[in-house]
């Protein structure tokens, strides 16, 4: 193309495309509402988060948050501990009068990678990912969560059928 024509075409192109973009941003500026979810203090509805706010808006059902253990069902099989690729679950059991007690069930949440492998192998669904994700703290030691304070007796091993259903 003739350089002179090209020269004016360049100007035209620049003006045209720039205004095209500007119109879109203008549309956003004036019309589109923000989609920001104002965590933590301006949320609405639903069950409460630790900070006293609603959870439902931001976290889905399957969300893999902090691990939670239900000692009424944990049978102390150590599967979770063995499966965890980085050994962050520490379980100790003690046998006292034929009853096994879980004396220690520590989960190092600061190191966990929230992969869900331990949850998958648990035969009784005792260990699950809760929806909790808030754990910011000033001292990293707070993130080692000791689930057992007083030794808890292990639950009965469920029957075969129940275990299958997990």
């Amino acid at each position, binding site marked *: 193309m003739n350089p002179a024509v090209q020269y004016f075409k360049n100007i035209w*192109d620049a003006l*045209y*495309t720039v205004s095209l973009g500007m119109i879109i941003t203008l549309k956003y500026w004036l019309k589109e509402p923000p989609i920001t979810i104002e965590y933590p203090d301006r949320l609405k509805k639903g069950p409460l988060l630790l900070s006293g706010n609603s959870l439902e808006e931001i976290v889905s059902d399957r969300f893999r948050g902090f691990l939670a253990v239900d000692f009424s069902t944990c049978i102390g099989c150590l599967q979770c501990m063995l499966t965890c690729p980085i050994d962050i679950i520490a379980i100790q059991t003690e046998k006292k009068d034929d009853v096994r007690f879980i004396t220690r069930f520590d989960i190092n949440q600061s190191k966990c990678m929230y992969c869900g492998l331990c949850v998958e192998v648990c035969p009784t669904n005792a260990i699950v990912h809760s929806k909790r994700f808030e754990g910011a703290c000033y001292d990293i030691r707070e993130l080692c969560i000791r689930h057992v304070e007083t030794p808890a007796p292990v639950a009965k091993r469920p029957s075969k059928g129940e275990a299958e259903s997990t």
Partner: protein
Amino acid sequence: MLNPYGNIFVFFAVGFGVVFATMVVVKIIAPHRPNPEKLTSYECGEKPIGPGWINFNARFYLIAILFIIFDVELILVFPVIVNFRDYLLAGNGLLAFIEIFLFIVILFLGLIFAWEHKYLEWLWAIRKRLRVDTGVVRIKDVIEGKSGVEDE
């Protein structure tokens, strides 16, 4: 008393004064804990290699030369342009116009010279290396046409 231009000096003084006062205040109320590491030059987290000097592109230099000439030209044309209206009203508009016109056109020739001789280009070598043709592209066509998978 100062004439109106006195304000310029006052502005100068006040501008300096404001910054100076602020810096004194900052000295007093901001923490100050230098250490050798903090005082190293920032270079993207790396310990700086060599002096903090950059041998910048000589193109900038050409631009500056070009600029200075145009700047001078601008300055000389200011007084003439201011008078243009008066001359126009006095009926001498053509004279002023021709003068401005000549002056600007002569300078314009300089610009064209620089343009023609590619003093305004930066990237000759690279252009050549990448076999870049200044192919013509119709942006508008693309926009108005399909923007999905392209057909040739």
